[in-house]
């Protein structure tokens, strides 16, 4: 389960933020999940739960949008995904940049496009209790 590795990264990152901000506990995490990576939210949530315990996790989904550099056309992954074979979608799931291998601009067929949004996993917010006795960054 590849989601496990990403969940671990989110945890380590949240722990770093908590340490820097002097939080004694983490109450809530807000994670943004880009559509392109096609993360299974249930597996991801399950992996987070193994260590997080009572911490609330809010997962916000973000649609993936591409913009062609040569012609400027914008299009969505949702549209492109419909015509994509399962194995290619799986490769993009592991490494989202593989979109440049398997997708093309619908207007000019260029592989030179920007992933405008919705690439992968981001940690957007950490909510917790600050221990006033604990200096920040310790």
């Amino acid at each position, binding site marked *: 389960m590849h989601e496990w590795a990403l969940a671990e990264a989110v945890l380590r990152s949240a722990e770093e933020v908590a340490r820097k901000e002097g*939080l004694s506990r983490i109450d809530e995490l807000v994670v943004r999940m880009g559509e392109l990576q096609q993360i299974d939210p249930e597996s991801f949530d399950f992996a987070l739960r193994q260590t997080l315990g009572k911490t609330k996790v809010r997962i916000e989904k973000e649609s993936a949008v591409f913009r062609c550099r040569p012609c400027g056309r914008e299009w969505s992954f949702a549209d492109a995904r419909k015509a994509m074979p399962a194995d290619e979608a799986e490769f993009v799931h592991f490494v989202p940049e593989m979109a440049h*291998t398997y997708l093309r601009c619908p207007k000019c067929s260029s592989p030179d496009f920007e992933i405008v949004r919705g690439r992968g996993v981001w940690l*957007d917010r950490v909510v917790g209790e600050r221990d006033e006795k604990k200096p920040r960054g310790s």
Partner: protein
Amino acid sequence: MRKSLAGLDPRPSVIEERLSSIGRIIPVTGGKGGIGKSVMSSCLALCLRKSGAKVGLLDLDFSSPTLHVILGAPKGCFPKEEKGIIPPELHGISFMSMAFYSGDRPAPLRGTDFSNAMIELLAITRWGPLDFLIVDMPPGITDATLDTLRLMKRAQPVLVTIPSRLALETLRRMVRMFQDLRVGTLGAVENMCRDTNPLVREEMARLQVGYLCEVRFDPSLEGALGDPQKLLETRAVRDLEPAVNALSALG
């Protein structure tokens, strides 16, 4: 207390942990393409494995990966998904390449995309305990080199060059950058030698870079690609022995 992060990329925070059970991280690099970095990386990995070390091999040349060809990766050789991805074992070497995902299709990646793909691969790959991780680098001091130094802080490069003023011209710049960043190199391999030209030895001495060995031009090498056993029997691999011994001695 609420800390808004406006999108913090969590992946880099786990990379050090993923690499923590690796003894030595050795990027095999050089200034120019076509000087034999990939063949030298593969041969170093095979020789270190033969000597009994636990070895990983990572192909960082995302746009032109070739290590799977050199090692003769069979069809069906693919990473296993288990709390991340576990590199398949090929001839006793843990092997990871973007070719597993791109197949034989082009992967045209700009700088940001390259960095993102590299961070992703390092964040999700579980190498397990290794004595050496050999990293085959694309040529020059581009994103791959900068990201390697940024994300694999213990990297100790081995330099590859050929006896050509052009290759040395670019290598000199690379060495200078490593020295500016206080990155210690493990030395240089002079590849494709045809005569006893002191050019590279002298230049390495000037740059204060150790000279590991001279690998003579070996016409049998091309025919051995794809067959590790044959590769290990080539003159090129015999010539590489001082470099293998030097790396083995590092432990």
